[in-house]
């Protein structure tokens, strides 16, 4: 049987595997309701000393990162996050048994503890910035004398203007856009620096995005961070679109390399 096939478990509706959502600090067992992945299974903790893995029962399957599955995973973490500082596990992490989950907690106890200390009362916000090329080009033409002059010239002499003049214009616009993009991004980072503990830039998605960043924020600074983001988006509202999400678990700021292997 390949792992992708689902296991039929007549006696146990959800199977004996454990889907692990996150690690928290809690020295007693907890229930988080029937909100688990794969059909609202019960979400509860597996405990080892003062650490707990938040899990639900699952057949031994590979979960595709469909929106439905990802949202289920995320919803559990959001629920847990209301009360606890958590270390998120990667999507789709399934252990074969409770014993295997305990082995994880025991063998990684120190690293989990250190990271939980560091992440205490920290939350993550996502900020994506997209621009509208046409608007940015228009703004550049307004501000950049050289570009404006060259463009006017080409427009005036539409018939006779050379290929090279157009090329030259294209190059100037491209360079100015790159410069503008860097300027916007640097400014946003600068402004958010004082209200965040750390930031991380991820690869941009698609050709309209100029920033795809995550910010680590102290819970006590949440309101200030919020206000700052709103102020910045107002400042740039004619040029840029802001996609602001969160609070998230600190996905981008926890980097524990778990030594996991395939369980056969």
């Amino acid at each position, binding site marked *: 049987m*390949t*792992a*992708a096939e689902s296991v039929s478990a007549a006696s146990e509706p959800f199977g004996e*595997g454990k889907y692990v959502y996150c690690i928290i600090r809690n020295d007693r067992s907890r229930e988080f309701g029937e909100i688990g992945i794969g059909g609202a299974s019960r979400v509860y903790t597996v405990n080892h000393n003062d650490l707990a893995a938040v899990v639900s029962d699952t057949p*031994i*399957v*590979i*979960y*595709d*990162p*469909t*929106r439905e599955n990802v949202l289920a995973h995320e919803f559990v973490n959001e629920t847990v996050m209301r009360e606890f500082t958590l270390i998120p596990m*990667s*999507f*789709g*992490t*399934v*252990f*074969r*048994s409770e*014993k*295997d989950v305990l*082995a*994880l907690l025991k*063998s*990684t106890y120190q690293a989990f503890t250190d990271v939980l200390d560091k992440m205490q009362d920290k939350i993550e916000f996502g900020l*994506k910035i*997209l621009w509208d090329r046409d608007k940015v080009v228009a703004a550049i033409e307004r501000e950049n004398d050289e570009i404006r002059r060259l463009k006017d010239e080409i427009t005036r002499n539409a018939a006779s203007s050379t290929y090279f003049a157009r090329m030259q214009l294209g190059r100037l616009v491209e360079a100015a856009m790159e410069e503008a993009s860097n300027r916007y991004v640097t400014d946003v980072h600068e402004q958010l620096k004082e209200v965040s503990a750390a930031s991380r830039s991820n*690869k941009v*998605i*698609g050709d309209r*995005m100029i920033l795809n960043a995550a910010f680590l924020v102290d819970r006590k600074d949440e309101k200030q961070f919020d206000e700052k983001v709103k102020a910045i988006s107002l400042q740039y509202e004619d040029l840029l679109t802001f*996609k602001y999400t969160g609070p998230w678990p600190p996905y981008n700021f926890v980097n524990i390399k*778990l*030594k*996991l*292997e*395939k*369980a056969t």
Partner: protein
Amino acid sequence: MGLLTNILLAPFLGPVWGARWSLDKIDRVVKEELTDDTPVKEDLMALQMKLEMGEIDDAEYVREEAAIMQRLREVRDWREKLGMSIGGGPVRVAGSEESE
């Protein structure tokens, strides 16, 4: 895509590409492409973004998501066939004893 691009562009990239041209190389490139899910994941993120920006509707999202999931499964199958690790599926702490 990458392999195809390289083949299509081969004459232009002649000196660099040609010098290293060998069956080993092809084998490796093919393997890398079949077993790398990074581009698939990037496509999934781009699709998500399109939905968020209102460029596509729910129905289209679901349709394209299904195609992307199929590609992910294909990458996973290749990784399994070639004995590489796969994301997802049952795991345990490396070196721990067999679970019953």
